[in-house]
């Protein structure tokens, strides 16, 4: 379905301002996340940065799109929720898989940059500190 005669010039003033604000905020967050991806030092720090754009940046731009099209068409148009649901479920899964793969590779290669695993240290020291 192509809306031939819609243009965003027909938006009322408040909707135009709110859409402009949300689009600007979302793209700024995406840019900040990507600059973090560019500037941070190690891989395990770099993983954190782009998720800023993948969650909050996408959320702002999708809310702006929902608002703009709902006001333009005069009815509720919320199909952008599809992208929001899909992205919030898939981004953590993909990042978990990627970091697990990178951690596996670094442990196999005995890389010094790997964060230490505290899983067994905590158990052992807990047993040593036990009062009885």
């Amino acid at each position: 379905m192509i809306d031939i005669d819609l243009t965003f010039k027909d938006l009322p003033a408040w909707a135009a301002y709110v859409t402009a604000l949300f689009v600007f905020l979302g793209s700024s967050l995406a840019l900040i996340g990507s600059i973090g991806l560019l500037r941070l030092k190690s891989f395990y720090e770099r993983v954190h940065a782009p998720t800023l754009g993948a969650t909050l940046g996408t959320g702002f731009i999708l809310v702006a799109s929902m608002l703009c099209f709902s006001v333009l068409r005069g009815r509720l148009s919320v199909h952008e929720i599809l992208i929001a649901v899909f992205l919030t479920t898939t981004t953590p899964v993909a990042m978990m898989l990627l970091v697990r793969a990178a951690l596996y590779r670094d442990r196999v290669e005995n890389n010094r940059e790997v964060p230490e695993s505290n899983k067994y240290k905590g158990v052992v020291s807990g047993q040593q500190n036990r009062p009885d």
Partner: protein
Amino acid sequence: MRFLPLPPARPLDLPFLVLDWSLFIAQLFLGLAMACAAYRLIFGPRAQDRVLGLDTFYVNAMLLLLTYGIRIASAVYFEVALIIGMLGFVGTVALSKFIMRGEVIE
């Protein structure tokens, strides 16, 4: 492609200008973000950095298409963005599997 008569011309008012410039700046920012991700994709020191750059690259491309869809008020670009999101997730998962095991399908 416009079959209906154009709406009567409206003088350029402030909300329209603000929205137009905001969309332009957003497209500029997202283009810069894609450039940062492309740097990681090309010059990333190791394979996992390149996969992370690819992930960021497709998310930013999706946002750029959504912004363009708002700009020309068309719902077609929403579907393009949805497809980019789905295929990008599949690509990241397949590349992570490749980094982990050296094979995608075993």
